[in-house]
């Protein structure tokens, strides 16, 4: 079986509703069996793909997001943002964005953020006269901040696969996350400017102080995560466990931590992670097929023949990844493509941290688009609206997001300056 047939079989299985992990495993096993490899190679490779220390951050950070959600931390962030911005025109929209920013420092996955925001804020915004499309689009696109702002599960995966420092990738993601926030805020500003009924209300001092006190504990999470990593107390993977432990401490302090919350969060974490981890194992197996077919070399030769400009290379890559991202989720693409792309990126002299941030933002934009868009699914299911309606709401928000992506692509220092300053 050659590469073309392999890719055709894989695509056919994916389109014919075979679950992604199993489509990847089935086509790869078929490849190995027909090429005379021994049975056992596939399952060993899947096990190896999962049996990796940095991947431990995946279940742990998902647990952090889930438990934070159950402990009511999102609503504390929301209350605080609301008390801070009462006088601003269109304040609820900024509150939505602000809550996303707050949550993004705690959570490494967009889903917990998207779930929390669309549950609380979308109905609230619709009640106050915002359109459903705007409210859901803002919640969905704002939730991407969770995967760009550290901690971030895709960043952990990229760093582990590319064998680069997770700390450097985290540091490199901070400015891009701020730019994304600005981009989304500008769109919000334009949208609310001319609409009636978006006027703010009076500032309430006591309410602001109460909300501030209630949110201090949660706002301390990024200090612990980033401070611990940069201060040399624990590694990024270990930071995930520390953050989880801190959430439990917060829950105990807030008196919202019950045995039921604990068990429920663990169970949700298991259901969410095991699906991802099996895909990651399958991605490792698929990586074996691509390695044996020397795809990295072939693709590298093709790209170096095409251009010698790193920017054109990255733009070509962006188009490729945006297309892939509409069909596949970020983690398997990262695991399969990073080993292929790293040597090519090195030929073009591209900083791996730069490549990482561009790739992650690119693939995360894909999670906002059909046919496979995890964030769309979550927002749609929680607000009980079809995915297509959510996507129409998301569409205008893609403009600032893609603009930020292009900016990052063309100006690498936006990514590399923070790690350089921190000496990472």
């Amino acid at each position, binding site marked *: 079986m050659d590469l073309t047939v392999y890719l055709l079989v894989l695509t056919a299985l994916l389109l014919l509703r075979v679950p992604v992990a199993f489509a990847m495993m089935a086509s790869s096993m078929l490849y190995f069996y027909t090429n005379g490899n*021994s049975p056992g190679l596939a399952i060993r490779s899947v096990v190896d793909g999962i049996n*990796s*220390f940095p991947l431990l951050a995946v279940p742990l950070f998902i647990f952090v997001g889930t438990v934070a959600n159950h402990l009511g931390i999102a609503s504390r962030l929301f209350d605080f943002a609301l008390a801070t911005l009462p006088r601003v025109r269109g304040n609820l929209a900024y509150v939505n964005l602000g809550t996303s920013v707050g949550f993004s420092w705690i959570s490494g996955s967009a889903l917990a953020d998207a779930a929390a925001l669309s549950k609380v804020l979308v109905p609230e915004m619709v009640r106050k006269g915002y359109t459903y499309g705007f409210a859901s689009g803002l919640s969905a696109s704002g939730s991407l901040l969770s995967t760009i702002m550290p901690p971030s599960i895709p960043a952990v995966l990229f760093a582990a696969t590319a064998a680069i420092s*997770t*700390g450097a990738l985290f540091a490199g993601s901070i400015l891009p996350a701020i730019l994304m926030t600005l981009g989304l805020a500008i769109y919000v500003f334009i949208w609310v400017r001319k609409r009636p009924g978006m006027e703010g209300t009076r500032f309430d001092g006591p309410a602001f102080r109460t909300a501030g006190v209630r949110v201090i504990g949660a706002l301390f999470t990024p200090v612990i995560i980033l401070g611990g990593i940069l201060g040399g*107390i*624990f*590694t990024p993977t270990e930071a995930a466990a520390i953050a989880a432990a801190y959430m439990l401490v917060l829950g105990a302090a807030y008196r919202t931590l019950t045995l039921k919350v604990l068990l429920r969060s663990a169970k949700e974490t298991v259901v969410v992670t095991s699906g991802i981890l099996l895909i990651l194992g399958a991605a490792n197996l698929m990586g074996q097929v691509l390695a*044996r077919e020397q795809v990295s070399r072939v693709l590298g030769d093709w790209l170096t023949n095409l251009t010698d400009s790193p920017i054109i290379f990255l733009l070509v890559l962006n188009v490729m990844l945006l297309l892939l991202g509409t069909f596949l989720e970020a983690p398997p693409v990262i695991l399969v493509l990073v*080993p292929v792309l790293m040597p090519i990126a090195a030929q073009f002299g591209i900083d791996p941290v730069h490549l990482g941030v561009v790739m992650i933002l690119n693939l995360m934009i894909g999670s906002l688009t059909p046919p496979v868009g995890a964030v769309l699914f979550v927002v749609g299911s929680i607000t009980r609206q079809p995915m297509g309606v959510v996507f129409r709401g998301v569409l205008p928000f893609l403009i600032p997001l893609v603009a930020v992506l292009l900016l990052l692509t063309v100006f690498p220092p936006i990514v590399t300056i923070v790690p350089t300053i921190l000496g990472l």
Partner: protein
Amino acid sequence: ATLLITGCGQDSGDTADEGPTENEDVTLTVATSQPETTPNYYCGVELLKERLEDADIGFTVELYPASQLGPDTERFAAVQAGDIDIDLQGASALSATYEPIGVVDAAYVFDDVDHAFEWIDTASSELFEDFSAETGARIVDGWFFGNRTFTTTDTPIESPDDLEGLAIRFPDSPQFLANAEAMGVTPVTVANEEIYVALQQGIAEGQENPIVATHSQSFDEILKVASLNNHQVGIHWLVVGENTYDKLSDEQSELLDETLHGIRAENRECVEEETNKILDEYRADSSYTVVEEDEVDRAAFTEKAEEFFSTYYDGERLELYESIREMAG
């Protein structure tokens, strides 16, 4: 090396029966954990590819460096199953499948490379035959990839006392951890993927690796003191699956073994050259300190290690350990 060739010749007795009588076209899959920038790639497997293909007796060689085909233990399982033909493996990884082989990775078991090569050529056949009987894979020879030494952020290591209380990262395999204990180190366990960041953050104050590897993984961006205590002769064992010999004619098997043996000396020179080149850069750079071999109290280290391993090992492994130590100059 003649002795060893005859040793393998005996093994390949059955190969002659099973293998084809004519030279058939055969593609060999050769894998290693080493990246393309290390001597064991460009002065090792790359030469192997060149020579086997140039011989024009049906060989095509495909190289998969940098653990492209999986981590060490997985690749060895693939050699056993016939999915990889030739692999470069450290003894510690092999010891997950065949425990006794771990002994050759013991700290200070070999005095130097010459000692190790002499042992391979004259005294290894029993161990290797047992290994092959147990695992279905042959150890044809071993290529040097550098002496493992300590590199630390700022502590020079001249004697075992200098290691006390120092947080040094060791790989989490039983033999490496025993080595740490033998030298009096309390090892820091950090996953391979997180070594760089752990060093950068000071979670670990040093690590142990051959200079070439320390350099190729950029650990020397953080670690400024290289102490040439040479606690371990780093050898990559050339493991070839029995399945592979079954695919080869006698002429092909012979050429394969000969070529693997033949590269050993050139490869060693290349490794030493590269090591010295890196060390000379350190010596010329005031931000680096090199603790030279003659500044290290090797006798103290060896004695400490011998004392430890003579009680740590027992039975077959103790016998092997002692027989290697007896050969020491």
